[in-house]
């Protein structure tokens, strides 16, 4: 499946945007963190580029971490830069640490928990 198409079908992240200073925010906040003015809800883009990343190599402390039933496995986490001019913290699925590059195109979708991203053009 193609990336842009994925972005259309996957649930978009819902943020907010300040009409005055154009700052976009996630998650949505009724007040702009830059100028304090009122911000309006906005659906954020589903595609962006990876701004930075790391690998969580060890199991985080529980709580707050909930270890999966099949045990901890290292995972990639990073910030995805969207065209709206903000960077979103997300778990990066569907790629091994060796394959991660700053600037790579990724799709980003809302789900039950934190945002999850995956390389654009890669299907589940």
């Amino acid at each position, binding site marked *: 499946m193609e990336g842009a198409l994925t972005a259309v079908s996957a649930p978009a992240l819902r943020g907010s945007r300040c009409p005055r200073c154009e700052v976009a925010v996630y998650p949505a906040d009724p007040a702009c963190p830059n100028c304090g003015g009122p911000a309006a809800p906005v659906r954020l883009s589903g595609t962006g580029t990876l701004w930075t990343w790391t690998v969580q190599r060890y199991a985080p402390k529980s709580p707050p971490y909930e270890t999966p039933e099949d045990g901890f496995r290292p995972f990639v986490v990073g910030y995805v830069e969207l065209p709206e*001019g*903000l960077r979103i913290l997300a778990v990066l699925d569907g790629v091994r640490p060796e394959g991660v590059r700053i600037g790579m195109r990724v799709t980003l979708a809302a789900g039950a928990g934190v945002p999850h991203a995956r390389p654009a053009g890669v299907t589940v």
Partner: protein
Amino acid sequence: MSGAGAADVLVCGVGITPFGRSEATGLDLAAQAVRTALADAGVPWPRVRAAFGGSDAAGNADTLVTRLGLTGIPFVNVRNGCATGGSALVSAVNAIRSGAADVALAVGFDKHPRGAFDPRPADWGLDEAYGAEGLMVTTQFFAMKIQRYMHDHGITARTLALVAEKAYANGARSPHAWRREPLDADAILASGMVNDPLTRYMFCSPGQGAVALVLCARSVARELPAADPVALRAAVVRSRRFGSFEVFSPWAPGGIPTSVSADAAGAAFEEAGIGPDDIDVCQLQDTESGAEVMHLAECGFCEHGEQERLIAAGATAIGGALPVNTDGGCIANGEPIGASGLRQVHEIVQQLRGRAGDHQVPGGPRTGFTHVYGAPGVSACTVLTR
């Protein structure tokens, strides 16, 4: 604000405890550091007119009066995470410059259990999912910040290892350090990846320790025959401006991140009337190796990217052009949050006095700088001169 009166506050006494683990409580350590600082200044406790201090997790500083003596002193507890020591120091400086006190105490201490710092999503205004899915891990943030910085400015993993190598080398020469075994860059690189690109031995650990400073107005310092004073030319705390990149953020604004460290350092240099080029020795927040690399540029000591060459050339070693973290920094001393910032000031005072022993910077340094940075975007800086 201006440089007026900036030279009027002198550090007349300093006291530090060992930063390694012991049975002592945080308040035991604090009392010990205060007594050492008073003796170093030659000032009896009842002569101190105002006190400011705090810890993150080891109790209220003002309860020290039961150990030091019930003199009626105003004792303000401050609590600002990593900037706790800086807040105590700024408050003490204000007390002296305002005329409210001519002798003031600043004390910082802490004692964290092993593997401390359990963040709770609600305390940070975050959805529980950020904790449950494993994104509330401070080391991730540090790794992601330096990862981008390395990409933008051509810093290599070897440079990160060299920073830690220097920290352990300096720690081995510092009696109060916790980690006193030298470790070479290869061993640091091979110590196991924690969060790429940071390995296990590139990080500091939560620890324990206490530091106290006795500050005096110049008029008092003149009358202390035993004191060996150093001028505190600037003490500044700043909080983040919009656009900074901070730990536990579900999002960050685009563009080049603003830096509270740059803001605080700039304000400190302005207050002191000197600049980074004038500094002979400095202490920079080194929660992990990458932090020291970035803070070198954020505080104005080099251009972004220059660190790769400078560190390889040994510029930041004790014998280098700009010695950094000469007592081993957080990496070798651990990070008792409330004590860390004042440990840096202690180190600069001893360096400028020429009393830093095995880790003394050669050539008689006459100017020093300290910098702490902590969550959620607070920085405290000082400038000291001899």
